[in-house]
């Protein structure tokens, strides 16, 4: 008897958790897109950068779940002719999902509400092209993809009707791809302003495992996909001294994300 109830509760809990992730829309856009035009020198050269990105997003369910990520990354890029660039990044990111573990059911208590996990490595590859219309204006396009090398895991201790059990939530193989178009204006002193729309797609596998003492170990997997989701980005790229540049950007697609990077042009 008791067993059945527990199992049922577990399933409810599990399903709830999974539902959250079914609609987990805007998973990590990994970082700044950068100005549509490369900062490398015209004859072709490297540029390197270090960046920080604060990412926040919401997804709608019966309740709003917010995820928040802080990313730090290092980038190496090669560009030429002031027109094209390819870049690669490696970075670390954390992940926090607010209220991921809150129970929807009075019988279940939980020791914490948020899913939280610290730094996991990710890699990003991207390429961009730029077409200058005249000396000031231009238009460019980019495509960028990110993949997380490790999984985000968090667990929570819960009780259901007084019986303790633990639930493990794993977010695996998180990846995304972004595609966008940007308009750029160059104002005096070499400052570039840019803005544009973008669309992206993200996917992850979420697995849930619950360990109920005296019951068998139960686990469930779900693969989440998104419909293409769109957003907008805007930023500014300012030359500092001696080959360094500061790039500040924000993105908006349901929630606001922003970040900055300092680059060096060889």
């Amino acid at each position: 008897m008791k067993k059945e109830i527990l199992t049922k509760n577990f399933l409810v809990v599990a399903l709830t958790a999974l539902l959250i992730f079914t609609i987990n829309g805007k998973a990590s856009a990994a970082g700044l897109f950068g100005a549509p035009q490369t900062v490398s020198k015209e004859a072709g050269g490297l540029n390197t950068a270090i960046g920080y990105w604060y990412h926040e997003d919401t997804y709608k369910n019966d309740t709003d779940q917010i995820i928040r990520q802080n990313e730090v990354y290092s980038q190496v890029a090669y560009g030429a002719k002031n027109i094209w660039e390819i870049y690669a990044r490696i970075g670390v990111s954390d992940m926090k999902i607010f209220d991921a573990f809150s129970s929807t059911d009075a019988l279940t208590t939980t020791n914490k509400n948020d899913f939280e996990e610290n730094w996991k490595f990710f890699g990003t590859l991207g390429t961009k092209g730029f077409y200058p219309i005249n000396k000031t204006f231009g238009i460019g396009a980019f495509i960028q993809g990110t993949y997380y090398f490790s999984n985000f895991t968090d667990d929570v201790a819960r009780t259901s009707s007084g019986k303790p059990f633990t639930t493990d939530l794993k977010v695996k193989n998180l990846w995304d791809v972004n595609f966008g178009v940007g308009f750029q204006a160059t104002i005096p002193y070499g400052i570039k302003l840019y803005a544009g729309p973008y669309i992206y797609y993200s996917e992850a596998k979420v697995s849930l495992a619950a360990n109920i003492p005296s019951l068998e170990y139960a686990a469930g997997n779900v693969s989440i996909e998104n419909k293409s989701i769109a957003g907008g980005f805007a930023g500014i790229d300012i030359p500092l001294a001696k080959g360094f540049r500061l790039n500040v950007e924000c993105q908006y697609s349901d929630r606001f994300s922003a970040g900055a990077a300092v680059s060096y042009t060889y």
Partner: protein
Amino acid sequence: MKSYLTLIVLFIFLAVGCAHSPSSTVLPQARSSPQQVLLASNSDQIPAKSLGKPVGNIDDEYKDDQNLDYTNDTFKEERVEIADPLEPFNKAMHQFNDKLYFWALKPVAQGYKKVVPEPARIGVRNFFSNLGFPNRFFSCLLQTDFSGAATEAGRFTINTIWGIGGLLDPSSNKELDLQKQDTDLGQTLGVYGVGQGFYIVWPILGPSSPRDSIDIASDYFLYPVSYISPWYAGLGVWGYEKVNATSLRIGDYESLKDAAIDPYVAFRDAYIQYRLKKVKARKAKLAPSETQEVNSPSADPVLPKKEN
């Protein structure tokens, strides 16, 4: 093997300058450069070249009466000598290192050079050089060279963050102009007046002295590679670094050895001079009012002054 071995393609200039083949009698007439016009004098230039010249001219040039200790020179070449009480041991070690170079290090470095392109090898060298930051930084601090310490800190930060972990060296660019402060703890001791002591040649590590050996020992503690565990992995990395560095300098050691009449003495002297000049340069940097050279105002044009 210290970096003085990164010799000297331009010993060549000297070589060619003094170059003379006994068979070429063309040379005396071939001198037609415009500066020659200024010289009517016949006693100048290379009487040695033309054995056919009248004896009187040779005598002029080889006169005894000149002060051969060159004490009249207002600029004195510093006499650099070092005691060598361990000479038999040193000579044996020198021989050992020589064989080690030709039989082991050089073949490996040559093979490595064939396989790996130069930019990659330069990147590896930059990477290891970047790791040498603690030694250089603390040496600067101990010498109270705070600007040098700041430069080193800046170099390390920029090269690590924006130089792909130290593989690239943007700090040395003309724009950033943060030059490597080529100093170590041995020089620090030298700046404080500690003499070289005497000459020692360590197997594998090369020429040194008690003062500079302290440097070798403390460098071990300040160099991150030493802390790689297990010990043989650290040693392997250290060895790789040496192979990579040698691959960029193949030929330098051979040149010096080949040009020397007595290789052991040549290397000893080269080592001592090199270290002495470095210490002098550090001292001059710390107390700029005491520079040795007398600059006439007109002869010191506004040219970029690079640290050696």
